[in-house]
């Protein structure tokens, strides 16, 4: 097992990883940027080291800075969290070349699953249905137009790299497609340094359902059920829950088993998530794999009792899984709410500033993962995630009821957050009925959605 892990991330996930390092008795060094020196993770770390200025490119995204920090602080492994360098196979390879362990899939596994199109093809071969899409990356606009014609409109433009909705757009006609391709290409280039795009058939009313897997180095794997992340705005998840209300138990089991079988066969290793779209008839289509810890992993922790960061660490250290599918027992229902510093009423404008007062909710079945504290200054340089409220209940209605209580208890004063948005979700009949689809929010408009809920 590792002696000392460098945590190469910030915010709530740095704290999350730190907690597991502590629990495992492993030293935790937090790498931070100049803008994060007052962060909770830095305060609690065994050691903290400044790796660069606020700008992520020169700190959290700088492979040399992170690796150098790990070396000079005597770490033998690096946990990248999510985002930043977490799925960067070059960084994973550099880490290994310097004799350190990258906590995540090995470099060659990351490389194998780096291209979304390539992964769909690979896992398609191992039995996962995929959405009809373009024949590989679009060579140019003409190729795009021809492929869209073949697939049939509406189609979704997607970038090969990255995530988080950047470079994605749904179009309903050749004219829209031509305009959008230019925009998506430049967005993708700016965000990921790669402007490769491909097309997918757009499913009008769909659910986002993803399967959590853990696979060790020796090809033993389990799935830990699925999560439903259909509450999205602009392709960004806002609320996630498990199990999915979209599928009956037998269908969920089938989905999870086929996902696990495919990734094990394709040689995946470590903790990972396979994302699917599920249509109104319950058909599912594989869309992509996330080779890292997910933001929404706590809901699966609430159901299973498994610590996913601990599993990442153990598997990266070469330990065998040590249990089998029959040992994975899921109990109850859990929902996660992403609390963002953003102004829903004003186009989700990100907010920064001092947290005047912070008090997380408590009680049975309530977990709040957040790096906030009273007096903390949210810097303007990074994503707007303030924390994640996770509620558990023996069933979905009780989880929803607890969520309402917890949201009402939560105190985050000093900056605008999307708490009102979550209240609106919890009052929404479609959500309560378990029938939310991924495009509902964008169709209605989030601001209108919140306003409508406030009026009732």
């Amino acid at each position, binding site marked *: 097992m590792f002696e000392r892990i460098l945590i190469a991330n910030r915010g709530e996930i740095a704290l999350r990883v730190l907690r597991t390092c502590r629990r495992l008795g492993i030293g935790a060094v937090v790498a931070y940027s100049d803008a994060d020196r007052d962060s909770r993770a830095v305060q609690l770390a065994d050691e903290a080291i400044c790796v660069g200025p606020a700008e992520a490119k020169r700190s959290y995204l700088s492979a040399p800075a992170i690796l150098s920090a790990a070396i*000079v602080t005597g770490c033998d492994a690096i946990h990248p969290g999510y985002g930043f360098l977490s799925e960067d196979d070059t960084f994973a390879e550099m880490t290994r070349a310097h004799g350190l362990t990258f906590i995540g899939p090995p470099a060659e596994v990351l490389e194998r699953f780096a291209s979304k199109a390539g992964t769909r093809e690979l896992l398609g071969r191992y039995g996962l249905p995929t959405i009809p899409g373009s024949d590989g990356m679009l060579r140019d606009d003409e190729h795009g137009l021809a492929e869209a014609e073949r697939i049939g409109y509406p189609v979704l433009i997607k970038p090969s790299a990255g995530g988080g909705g950047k470079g994605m757009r749904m179009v309903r006609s050749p004219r829209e497609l031509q305009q959008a391709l230019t925009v998506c290409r430049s967005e993708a280039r700016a965000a990921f340094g790669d402007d490769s795009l491909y097309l997918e058939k757009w499913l009008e009313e769909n659910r986002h359902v993803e399967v959590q897997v853990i696979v060790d180095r020796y090809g033993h794997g389990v799935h830990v059920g699925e999560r439903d992340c259909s509450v999205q705005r602009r392709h960004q998840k806002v609320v996630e829950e498990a199990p999915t209300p979209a599928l009956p138990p037998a269908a969920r089991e089938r989905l999870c088993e086929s996902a696990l079988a495919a990734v094990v066969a394709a040689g995946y290793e470590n903790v990972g998530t396979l994302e699917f779209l599920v249509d109104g008839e319950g058909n599912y289509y594989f869309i992509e794999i996330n080779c890292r810890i997910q933001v929404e992993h706590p809901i699966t922790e609430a159901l299973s009792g498994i610590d996913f960061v601990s599993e990442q660490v153990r598997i990266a250290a070469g330990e065998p899984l040590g249990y089998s599918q029959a040992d994975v027992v899921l109990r109850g229902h859990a929902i996660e709410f992403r609390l963002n510093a953003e102004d829903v009423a004003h186009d989700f404008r990100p907010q920064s500033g001092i947290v005047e007062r912070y008090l997380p909710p408590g009680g049975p079945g309530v977990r709040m993962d957040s790096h906030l504290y009273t007096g903390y200054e949210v810097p303007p340089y990074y994503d707007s995630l303030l924390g994640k409220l996770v509620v558990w209940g023996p069933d979905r209605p009780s989880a929803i009821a607890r969520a309402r209580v917890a949201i009402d208890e939560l105190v985050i004063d000093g900056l605008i957050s999307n708490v009102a948005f979550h209240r609106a979700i919890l009052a929404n009949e479609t959500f309560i009925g378990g029938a939310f689809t991924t495009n509902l929010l964008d169709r209605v408009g989030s601001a209108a959605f919140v306003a409508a809920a406030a009026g009732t």
Partner: protein
Amino acid sequence: MATRGSRRAAVPDTAGAAEQARGDALAMQRLSEAVLPALIARFEASGLGELEVRRGDWRVRLRKPDHGEVLAAPAAGGGAIRAGGDGASGAGRSGVAAASAGRGAALSAVGPGRVATAATGGGTAARRTATSPAVGYYMPVAAMTPGRLVRAGDVVGYVDVLGVRQEVVAPLDGAIARVLAELGQAVEYGQELVRLDAAPPVAPGLDDEPLAASDLPPSEA
């Protein structure tokens, strides 16, 4: 031991007051007209770092930037490591100095002055110190010993980042007062590496303040 950086004027922070009811607005007016100027004067005289006045939902906070205090850390083979906590954090493990495991180097202790020092244009203290451009191992330039005259932009040392040398640059014309790191010492981004005495102002318009004798660090390590 400690030098004190320059102070900046207090910044009143009155966010949110505009939305308050008439009562608050009145109290606010009273505060800013009658109390605030006096408070600022007192605050400047008091030596306090922060002062806050609150009433209901609004508040005024007077705050000075941290003093440019620098610890004189002994740069031995296995130096002290920066502890996670500080006075304000409470829950941190302040005061805990853990030895760095392996790899033959250690990170030197970093005082609370680093915020001010690393900031661009913070005060004269920042402009008097060459800081690390990256995280890595320090490599001095042999000629750069105390007393040596340098010009702004001169390379006064290097930081080795995975085998690549990054330049440590003098921020102003002056003389080397003290080198704060040793060969092979682990340093972090923004860490103070070479202290300079500014050259006396030779031309009008040079915006560096002259140094008082009391601002210079004592000569012992």
